[in-house]
């Protein structure tokens, strides 16, 4: 059996996407924790272009970029499919995956901002949540994938768990459940799935780690 290795970091929403996909498919893998401030020679060899996690190494061959990794996993191990088979439905799913992926930068944008920049970042967050509420979750679906989660749910997971941590770190409430009832239901359903619930980074640990980093960053900004 070919060896599967995953390079990740304990707080990375991108790494968790791959962890969940592997677990959903029942694939055993070896996890290697990377220190992003001191990247291993192996990571730099496997991902020379972006030098980032996650990287999946299957049978010695590296695959980089979480969305590319997810599609690879889905093709190699077809059990519990993560994308629809129908070409049109698949194109719609890929559209939402790209949409979610293009918005993850809002995490660091809000994290790094204060003052006017922070107001702008919050506005972008609310616009994104509105699109999710009005366009992506229509039809009374339990998950983006229907009755079961699929790659789209996995792509939006940063909203389900990491946003809450970010709100705590910056001291702002961005997500008001009554304003986004569909998204709110989806978050509750998503986090209730045992495989997801049992595989999430500790929120308090992330919060403490991020708060400290943010204090230092804002202090150096004002100097």
């Amino acid at each position: 059996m070919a060896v599967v290795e995953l390079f990740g970091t304990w707080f990375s929403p991108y790494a968790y996407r791959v962890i969940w996909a592997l677990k959903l498919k029942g694939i055993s893998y070896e996890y290697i924790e990377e220190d992003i401030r001191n990247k291993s020679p192996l990571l730099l060899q496997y991902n020379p272009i972006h030098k980032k996690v996650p990287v999946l190494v299957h049978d010695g061959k590296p695959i980089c970029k979480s969305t590319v990794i997810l599609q690879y996993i889905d093709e190699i191990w077809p059990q519990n499919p993560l994308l629809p088979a129908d070409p049109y439905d698949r194109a719609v799913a890929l559209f939402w995956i790209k949409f979610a992926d293009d918005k993850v930068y809002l995490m660091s944008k809000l994290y790094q901002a204060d003052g006017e920049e922070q107001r702008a970042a919050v506005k972008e967050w609310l616009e994104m949540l509105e699109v999710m509420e009005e366009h992506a979750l229509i039809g009374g679906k339990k998950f983006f994938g229907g009755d079961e989660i699929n790659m789209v749910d996995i792509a939006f997971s940063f909203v389900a768990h990491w946003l809450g941590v970010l709100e705590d770190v910056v001291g702002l409430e961005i997500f008001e459940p009554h304003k986004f009832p569909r998204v709110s239901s989806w978050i509750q359903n998503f986090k209730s799935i045992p495989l997801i619930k049992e595989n999430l980074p500790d929120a308090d640990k992330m919060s403490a780690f991020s708060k400290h980093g943010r204090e230092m960053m804002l202090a150096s900004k004002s100097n």
Partner: protein
Amino acid sequence: MEDEVVLLDFWPSSFAMRVKIALGEKGIKYKCKQEDLFNKSPLLLEMNPIHKKIPVLIHNGKPISESLIILQYIDQVWNHKSPLLPSDPYQRSQALFWADYIDKKIYGIGRRVWMGKEDQEEAKEELMQCLKTLDRELGNKLYFGGQNIGVVDVALVPFTTWFYSYETCGNFSIEAGCPKLVAWAKRCKENYQSVSEALPHPLQIYEYVMELKKRLGLV
């Protein structure tokens, strides 16, 4: 029943050119509708309400947006000839990685080059770095797809009509830094009618860029 295929287009758009190449490769008959990006049609706003951007492929009334997603859709539906993606999953993952790299880099950096603002020098350096990376990735292959063009070739070749504009606005030479890439672009146009038909002449693009710069108050 005949398939109805419509492409919402904007002729200078590299992203739309990708779709035209793919449709050409597969021999698909389609209707091309030009959009005015300063005055978007109700159809475009209906078919792509989230981003309001072209290209949009409308297949039997159903819209597909985002050029790389459109390419994958075309490849899946019209799988009788000219495969755009490799059949091997690992090769496919590498192709999608490079297509994504091109997507994230070339348009944004290229724009900063032709706009000619304070960050132009920085943008030129970044553009050359990206193109050199792609030049290295191509290596001695005929095409990124191997013996035939594939999704990476289709994703990148439209930007080559913009090279003249980048070079002229930025006062530098791309060929000097990436000879293999420039030779590859020539090869694509010479050997693939779908490419030569989809790509406007570089001077037409330059004319468009100069008009746009005037409109934006940059000249």
